[in-house]
């Protein structure tokens, strides 16, 4: 059991309180989901549960945090290894040993078990997390989902009662996410553990949650309850719940199966009135009619080799102006490599890349940024100055623009950003807006984005979608590499799916998203016979006023 009583926390003695007199209880053997808008203190809350906050972050804390009867704030993290396990957000940079097996054994060596018990426990964890085929693999050779499972195993082996994960799947593709969530569910179901995790993409985890801890950005106590209770009124809900609330479905559906049952029973008449819409000719058919010289960017027979590995193989794609293309695929399928080629960071091994009629790899300075821009997956990489104002001014100088242009673009994207604030202190959504403003100020004809929705809550994603649609209306070509199916459903015109460096699908977003179970958005799963991708489409189709 996790008990917080009268917990207050602030980073500096006179600074703003993050939490004030917070009380709540997480019962044993539950999977608790911490939700809230970006910057609401989800990571801080998770850190308090194993005294990582304030041991590593500093700050002033009062009140009591008890996990299974142990006073956490009075202990050092190292003495809590057998009570609270913490899985880091990016496990790959936190590994110590060289192979999977020795990494898992590390915690046991520190606890001081004898060799026989260690062997037994390591074997148990290897079976539990499904790591048998990886046991002697080098840690540097693991994929993202595998690394996350090894990190969970490395913590689990000490037999903690509670497991804490801070956005464990934010960097993972849909398949790897399901692997990790399934492993976590098994821990709760079979071993009776308590798991506390935070996550932005609720559509991936809310089905598995017993309990939701909803922070609302204020300092007060979070709302704690079952998903049904919390999602009735929360601002941060998955698409399924949005639909359920708008269509007034009671009880509120949480799992896809609930949703489908509602869809079938209550709304059968409405569904029958609407025959499946006649499909527009698919892109593959349309492509024949389109003149190739309309294109703004293209790659032809592109091949990229990294030492012995082939990242892209014979890839040919043509991008039109005024079109949003989503590039999807597993981790390591070549998405980032494709973007890097298009922006000219990588010179391809073979093949031709053209952006606005030129090869981007040869461009430098203003010539490049006025043709093609990339917002990297860590937008903060682009920041070099001490304040937002300086950053905008530097951007004007880089692109040779009249002073104030970037600031005007930023003001259009996000009104509430403090001009004197440090760029790296901004919230993730604001950092993305600043990076986007810097990139867009030079007015590139092709805009590339790598995983733009990582760490964004639903309202921020909605805002981002509006911004991107405005850019599309201005005739830019947008190419977005992402794992976020629901986001793709909202904005993409076209989806390209890569697998092991090959293009395996390239068509209208509707055709691609509705034909693959892995990339299906929630609406498609609820209404398997319809082609609806977003909540608003479903509501329109059901003739429910939104």
């Amino acid at each position, binding site marked *: 059991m996790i008990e917080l009583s009268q917990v207050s926390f602030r980073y500096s003695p006179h600074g703003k309180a993050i939490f004030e007199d917070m009380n709540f209880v997480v019962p044993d053997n539950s999977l608790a989901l911490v939700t809230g808008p970006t910057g609401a203190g989800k990571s801080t809350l998770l850190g308090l549960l194993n005294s990582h906050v304030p041991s590593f972050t500093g700050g002033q804390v009062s009140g009591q945090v008890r996990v299974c009867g142990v006073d956490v704030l009075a202990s050092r993290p*190292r003495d809590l290894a057998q009570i*609270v396990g913490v899985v880091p957000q990016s496990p790959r940079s936190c590994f110590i040993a060289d192979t999977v097996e020795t990494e898992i054994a*590390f915690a046991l060596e520190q606890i*001081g078990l004898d060799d026989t018990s*260690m062997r037994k426990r390591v074997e148990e964890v290897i079976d539990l997390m499904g790591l048998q085929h990886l046991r002697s693999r080098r840690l540097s050779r693991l994929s993202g989902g595998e690394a996350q499972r090894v990190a969970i195993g490395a913590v689990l082996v000490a037999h903690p009662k509670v497991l804490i994960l801070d956005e464990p799947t934010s960097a993972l593709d849909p398949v790897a996410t399901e692997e990790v969530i399934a492993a976590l569910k098994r821990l709760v179901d079979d071993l009776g553990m308590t798991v506390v995790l935070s996550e932005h993409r609720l559509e991936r985890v809310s089905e598995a949650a017993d309990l939701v801890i909803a922070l609302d950005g204020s300092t007060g106590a979070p709302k704690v309850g079952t998903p049904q209770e919390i999602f009735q009124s929360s601002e941060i809900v998955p698409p399924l719940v949005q639909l359920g609330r708008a269509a007034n479905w009671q009880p509120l559906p949480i799992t896809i199966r609930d949703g489908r049952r509602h869809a079938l029973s209550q709304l059968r008449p409405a569904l029958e009135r609407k025959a499946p819409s006649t499909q527009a000719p698919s892109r593959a058919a349309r492509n024949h009619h389109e003149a190739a010289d309309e294109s703004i960017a293209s790659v032809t027979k592109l091949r990229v080799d990294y030492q012995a590995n082939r990242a892209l193989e014979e890839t040919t794609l043509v991008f039109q102006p005024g079109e949003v293309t989503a590039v999807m695929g597993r981790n390591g399928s070549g998405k980032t490599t494709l973007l890097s080629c298009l922006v000219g960071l990588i010179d391809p091994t073979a093949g031709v890349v053209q952006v606005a009629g030129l090869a981007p790899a040869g461009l430098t300075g203003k010539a490049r940024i006025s043709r093609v821009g990339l917002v990297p997956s860590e937008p903060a990489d682009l920041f*070099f100055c001490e304040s937002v104002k300086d950053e905008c001014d530097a951007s004007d100088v*880089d692109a040779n623009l009249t002073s104030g242009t970037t600031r005007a673009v930023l003001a259009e994207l996000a009104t509430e950003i403090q001009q004197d604030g440090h760029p790296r202190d901004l919230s993730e959504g604001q950092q993305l807006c600043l990076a986007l403003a810097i990139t867009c100020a030079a007015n590139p004809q092709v805009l590339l984005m790598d995983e733009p929705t990582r760490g964004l809550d639903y309202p921020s994603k909605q805002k981002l979608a509006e911004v991107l649609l405005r850019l599309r209306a201005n005739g830019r070509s947008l190419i977005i590499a992402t794992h976020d199916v629901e986001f793709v459903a909202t904005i993409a015109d076209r989806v390209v799916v890569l697998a092991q460096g090959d293009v395996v699908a390239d068509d209208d977003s509707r055709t691609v998203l509705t034909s693959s179970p892995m990339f299906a958005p929630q609406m498609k799963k609820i209404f398997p016979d319809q082609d609806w991708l977003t909540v608003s489409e479903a509501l329109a189709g059901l003739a429910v006023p939104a």
Partner: protein
Amino acid sequence: MKPRVNHPYTWWTAALVLSIGAAVTSSIWVLALLVMVVIGTVLAFHPDQDSLRAFKGFCYFAVIALGVRMVFALIIGNPFATDVLFTLPELATPTWLGGLTLGGEVTSTALTNALLEGLRMAAIVLAVGAASSLTPPVKVLSKLPSAVYEVGLTVLIALNTVPSLAKDISRTQTALKLRGRKHSGLRALATALTPTMESSLRRSMALAAFMESRGYGRLLGEVTLFRRGVVSISTLMVLAFTALSLAALMSAGFQETFGAAALVGLVTAFVILIVASRGMKRRTEYRPVSWGSADLACVALALAATTSIWFLS
């Protein structure tokens, strides 16, 4: 089934013993043979592709060492030898640079000497490289006394951050390119410094937090305050005496008594540290490897080779 693993000390001891052989011999043929034996051993016993790649790095390093030594022999030469092979254009440096003459006559004695010294260096580099790719240093650490383990682990983690540091720098360079700025040169380096430092600091904190949350740093069982004090003080003494010994070695007027005293102090402090830290167990070992007959045979072969080199030279 799992293949038998050598004791962590085996390859390292063998490498050390062979390095001594390489250091004492004055025959190019013996050195060439040693190099071939080392390369053959790695090819035969490497556990996976990654270790082979690591060894390749050492091979490049060895070739560079040999090459640099040869180039120096060509440029600086040996003024006392007379068996001239060919003559290079000469360049006299000014007296404030030591009045050295660069280029000039190249003698076969100079070349042979350079080849011998270069090969010796290459053989030692390869031997160490072979040991570290056959048994990663982290495995050797696990066998060392706990006081040494701590220091060693710190060094290893520091070394592990070097590749990620390089990754950070290239990320910043990418960002500079994306902003349309110059990505090379001193100014770009200065701009890149802050973000690189920041992300490596953040990563170190995450690593420290993950290690600690898995129990790193705790003591097993009861440890008396006295023992803890002895361990801390003797660790400090080891560091201090190491510094003093180095100072004694490097100072111009080498004082034998001072140097000897520092060395005796160092050894004493080290022995106290090891004895005291034995009762302060910090960890147990997963799947410990015991010393077997194969290990004995491997080290004995290396010893036999070095002994015969010693007596023949």
